């Protein structure tokens, strides 16, 4: 009953062409064209309101583009169940009465189909996913009892249980302490080995440069999309961030925008 689409594996896992999204009467995204290969790890960076969340939602197929196309392995995202969307932590009701295992099992809903309750195979997927993100011991905890890093791991586990091949993460590192951020970044390394393609929206230009294969610099349009050292050029950054840039002592450039709550599209 729930749709499943076969992948044309000769097509790129993600192909975006001339994508535009209008939101509240203005263009949130314009003329976005790029494609990704399976197993790539890409950071989306850009100032507040640049359209990072909008891009992620359009790729996930939960936001309809006003023009242009998004294709996942050759067909529109609305019939794919291989896209794992990992929400901003601020948008989750942490008092919802579910356990970590319950949330991870939600990722199986599509594969289970209607009227079926989880079988052993589904529990195996859930347990494997919890092991991969190293929170097996928290399986029966209520979700409000998790730390920020554990919350993020839980959602990654859910995407793994969903058997997603393209993971879209909206600000997964925001608000985490440094060890937790390192933990999540290491986890992304492990996903790369499993050929999972990862797109991460982030505020941190340094992390984007050091942990990702390519960086997509966004400000309503694509300013640059390339390997980090080519994207992180001062002229590109000025084009994306305008005056909101500042040099640090060690010569790095820092984008000055520390708030991210105005981008809930």
């Amino acid at each position, binding site marked *: 009953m729930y749709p499943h689409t076969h992948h044309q594996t000769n097509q790129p896992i993600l192909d975006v062409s001339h994508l535009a999204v209008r939101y509240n009467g203005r263009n949130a995204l314009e003329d976005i064209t790029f494609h990704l290969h399976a197993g790539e790890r890409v950071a989306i960076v850009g100032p507040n309101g640049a359209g990072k969340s909008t891009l992620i939602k359009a790729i*996930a197929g939960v936001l309809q583009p006003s023009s242009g196309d998004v294709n996942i392995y050759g067909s529109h995202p609305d019939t794919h*169940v291989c896209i794992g969307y990992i*929400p901003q932590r601020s948008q989750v009701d942490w008092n*919802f*009465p579910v356990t970590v295992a319950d949330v991870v099992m939600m990722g199986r*809903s599509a594969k289970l189909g209607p009227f079926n309750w989880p079988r052993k195979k589904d529990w195996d997927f859930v347990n494997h996913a919890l092991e991969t993100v190293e929170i097996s011991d928290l399986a029966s905890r209520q979700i409000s009892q998790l730390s920020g890093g554990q919350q993020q791991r839980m959602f990654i586990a859910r995407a793994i249980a969903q058997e997603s091949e393209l993971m879209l993460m909206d600000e997964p590192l925001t608000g985490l302490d440094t060890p937790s951020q390192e933990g999540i970044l290491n986890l992304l390394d492990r996903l790369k080995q499993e050929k999972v393609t990862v797109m991460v929206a982030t505020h941190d230009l340094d992390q984007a440069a050091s942990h990702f294969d390519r960086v997509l610099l966004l400000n309503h349009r694509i300013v640059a999309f390339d390997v980090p050292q080519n994207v992180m050029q001062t002229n590109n950054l000025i084009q994306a961030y305008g005056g909101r840039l500042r040099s640090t002592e060690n010569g790095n450039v820092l984008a000055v925008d520390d708030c991210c709550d105005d981008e809930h599209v």
Partner: protein
Amino acid sequence: MSFLLEPLSYEFMQRGMIAAVLVGIVCAVVGTFVVLRGMAFFGDALAHTILPGIALGYLVSGGARDQLFWWALGTAIVASLGIGAISKNSHIKEDTAIGIIFAGMFALGIALISTVRSYAVDLSHFLFGDVLSVSAQSLWLILIFGGLVLLVLFAFYKEFTTISFDPILAATLRLPVDLLNNLLLVLIAVTVAVSLQTVGVALMVAMLVTPAATAYLLTNRLSRMMLLAAIFASLSGVIGLYLSYYLSIASGAAIVLTATFFFLVVFGWRRVNQM
């Protein structure tokens, strides 16, 4: 012992008890989703919105009560989907839109009923319920439709949980989110129709919200929340009817007051424990 048994020697009390417990269980389980999704105002509005439907049925059938369930059911389903559509497609904020529709429909209901001479008595039955006048036929309708609601809710348990916790995940899993949302609205509507005779239009929201909220304070598992809510609601129904019998107070009010008492006790107990 005779204190407990004496009221049960009356057939209307037996039927009332069964009705109160059945309605309590259905309301509590459906109410769990109402509480978690923040739909209390929708539930309250929906209950009030069905009054003109009931009034029309009442006028058409010349005051016969047994037909009213069907009128309530029909109006509730139409109203739930209508409110759902308005709150999604309106320039006005959702709660304002619901407020306008619900007060307008409620006024229409009162206007219709007021054309009948004995309207004060009948109106109060619709508003506050009259569980002691539940007929055997009504009891069957409560059992069948209440059972149906629970059956559908359990059949789509994982889907309803997923769309309630994370609508975007549900969308990326390509679950039919709009269809499921509307199905949940219809289930709430059927629940409202089933509960009409027990607590009435004006007190309905208490049955949907109070036992579920009480349970929410005590557990952080969804299934346990449903079970606890059902227990609180059933107890409220039984204790409420005894109170109604011995203190001669209106049955619907007695049930709701008992449920509210449970909530306040649990709320206070949690507060004391946290200090």
